[in-house]
């Protein structure tokens, strides 16, 4: 009923669509308030998110740091908010730590409500088709995408 779709769009983007059984102001909060984001944006297999700070205003920064259950592995992401239109739309830039050169993606999240349900559409745009390809390839080689490093370990064990 709340099936998710995830697919490439054009040669620069990846699009994720998912519906939630909740009004959109609630979904919007869950995507933007750190105390709520912390509750779901973890990895599975016990990965925690000890650092999750979000200065939710245009030009404000976000910082997310993940840790593996044994504390041996970590990954981190910095973001900056570009557009905020509560409760309909968030645009932010994000850069992961540890890539050979900084690769910035722009993520546009939109929230549309109908009959008490909210459909979230997230468009992740990479600067060039080459960068997206690089992200995808490194994802395949290492079992995790550089752009999605925060969730390392989930698939390794699957």
């Amino acid at each position, binding site marked *: 009923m709340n099936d*998710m779709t995830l697919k490439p769009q054009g040669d620069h983007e990846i699009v994720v669509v998912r519906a*939630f059984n*909740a*009004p959109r102001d609630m979904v919007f909060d*869950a995507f933007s308030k750190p105390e709520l984001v912390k509750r*779901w944006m973890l990895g599975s297999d016990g990965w925690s998110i000890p650092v999750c700070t979000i200065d939710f205003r245009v030009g404000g920064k976000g910082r997310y740091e993940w840790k593996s259950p044994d504390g041996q592995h970590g990954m981190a992401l910095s973001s900056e908010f570009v557009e905020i239109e509560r409760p309909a739309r968030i645009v932010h830039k994000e850069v992961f730590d540890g890539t050979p050169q900084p690769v910035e993606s722009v993520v546009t999240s939109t929230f549309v409500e109908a009959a008490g349900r909210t459909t979230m559409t997230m468009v992740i745009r990479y600067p060039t088709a080459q960068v*997206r390809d690089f992200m*995808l390839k490194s994802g*395949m080689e290492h079992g995790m995408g550089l752009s999605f490093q925060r969730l390392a370990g989930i698939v390794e064990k699957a």
Partner: protein
Amino acid sequence: MSLDQTFAALADPTRRAILARLSLGEASVNELAEPFAMSQPAISKHIKVLEHAGLISRGRDAQRRPCRLETKAMDEANSWLEHHRAIFEARFQRLDDLLEEMKVERAKRKPATPKSNLKGVRK
């Protein structure tokens, strides 16, 4: 070869049909062209795209040069999508649970209008 090319190659229904045919075994361009209302050059063009994307290869036999399926590119495309799908789905299921809790909380805060709690946006 790039994933990008793989996805672009897979986006066309004729090319997917060619891949489906090749999954049954190798075939020449003529054999592949048969079921389609398309000229052989048009089919050859599709075959070049598939070959470029690493989805098929051509045999060395100079006369026939049979096409065959190369599964590696397809496997890579699938494994990437499956990988990310699994990650996002796991997160969103946790978000579903969180939203259920938030709805209960909101209903508690507004006991006067328990039946319209889905619409409430007041602070």
